[in-house]
């Protein structure tokens, strides 16, 4: 009797036979770089991001602070920062249109209007423009 029950339970586990949605189901890559401080692609800037009030919760509209420095560590005070992003495994963008709304001094830029409406792997891309040049950096975030 018990074997029959366990066999039945095993069958239940395979109730769903196939999925074409493999990409969406896949967990984030194991080697995903989750660092919050990175150089921009061409190496013009060093950028650090931090949520204004942590931790980041799925669904809540919230703000980040991006700190932009030159490679030598000096803060960039006159940058234009634009934000883009999305979920690479889902193929969609951010649910909101975040904006850098103000420079807070010492290269710190407030980014308002960020929301992650789903759990999983998100990308946040910052395009930075200043007299030092145009460059961009993409951060990976995993939201539970």
């Amino acid at each position, binding site marked *: *009797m*018990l074997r029959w*029950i*366990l066999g*039945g*339970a095993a069958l*239940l586990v395979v*109730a*769903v*036979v*196939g*999925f*074409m*949605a493999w*990409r*969406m*189901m896949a967990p984030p890559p194991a080697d995903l770089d989750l660092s919050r401080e990175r150089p921009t692609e061409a190496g013009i800037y060093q950028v650090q991001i931090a949520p204004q009030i942590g931790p980041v919760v*799925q*669904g809540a*509209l919230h703000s980040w602070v991006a700190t932009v420095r030159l490679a030598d560590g000096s803060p960039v005070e006159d940058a234009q920062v634009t934000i883009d992003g999305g979920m690479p495994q*889902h*193929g*969609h*963008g*951010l*649910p*909101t*249109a*975040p*904006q850098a709304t103000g420079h807070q001094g010492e290269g710190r830029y407030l980014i*308002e*209007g960020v929301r992650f*409406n*789903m*759990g*999983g792997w998100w990308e946040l891309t910052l395009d930075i423009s200043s007299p030092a040049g145009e460059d961009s950096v993409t951060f990976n975030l995993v939201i*539970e």
Partner: protein
Amino acid sequence: MARVGLGAALAVLSACGQADFSEQEKRAIASLSLSALGELPHDPSNRFADNPHAAAFGETLFFDTGMSANGAVACATCHLPERQFQDDLALAEGVGTTHRRTMPLANAAYSPWQFWDGRKDSLWSQALDPIEDAAEHGFDRAAVAHRVVAHHREAYEAIFGPLPDLSTVPAHGSPRGNPGAQDAWRRLQEDERYAVDRLYANVGKALDAFQRTIRHQPTRFDRFADAVSAGQEPAGEAALTALETEGLRLFIGKANCIDCHNGPRFTDDHFHNTGVPPVPGLPEDRGRAGIIEKLLADPFNCLGAFSDADEAECGELRFMVTASPELERAFKTPSLRGAASRPPYMHSGQIATLEAVIDHYSEAPKPVSGISQISPVIFTDRGRLALIAFLKTLDDDLSDP
């Protein structure tokens, strides 16, 4: 004897299923429980939102058929209290037939966007739209103002202060109404228009205060989730059957439902094109893409003259996506709480049964326009049954352990 045997077998199956939850699955289950729902968010755009007198006045207005063209339509005509504040119809019936399915109201106040297309950014602003819609109440704001003066003066003034003098305002007038009402609206002085608009906004704010009191109640799933979170074996009214547990696993796992139907309200409050076909004969419905300009220009939005919020408190409106191919035919993710007992489904009631909804997600048809955000998922017959069994645990009227 046979019944005892079957019961024991189900109990063992059920116990096996729960013991097997991974830590990630346990976190997902806990995240869906009503116990994880935070306090009702403060609404800075309506300073009367949590005023009990406003809620009581709002309840009166909710059932007031006097705010309609034919004297027979109230909010409660489509939002039936005994039916989860919806009407079981594919297309709502006011003074005419609308183009959309009535949405239930429980915990609607948690959502930053109202209506299937999110064309309103608060419940008070939302409440003003159906009253002037030609197919819903078919009324107009000047007539609402006169009705408040004639029938609700005491309740209104106790909350909002003295009513304006409307002696020079005609019986009907609105920038949205029929040509006669629009003409009358244009002929009003600016201060008269402002007085009517302010009164009209306050009617919405009272309706908002009432609707904030309409809340989800915990169901068998919540009792189950709370037991799992507490490390206890769900038993009695907290137990799920093996089939329901299997459906829950699919929901939070391979079927990807939780991507959009997440959190304690089972919605991400966002807009998605899922390839739901249009209804033949209805006008083109672009969903979110069709309302952005109207929302930004709405005098009753968070940034408008009748909002009590500062600009800094209007983040949803300030940082919303205003242009993207993803908005085309995108509609708001509905809550799944109570959904099992309120067919038909989708924004215009296109799909009659839960079985057919699952078929839709299995097939993931190409949308008539825009980009679908769903991918096909192939279910076995047992998988379909399991998902439906799980959805019924979110609805105590149907929950039958």
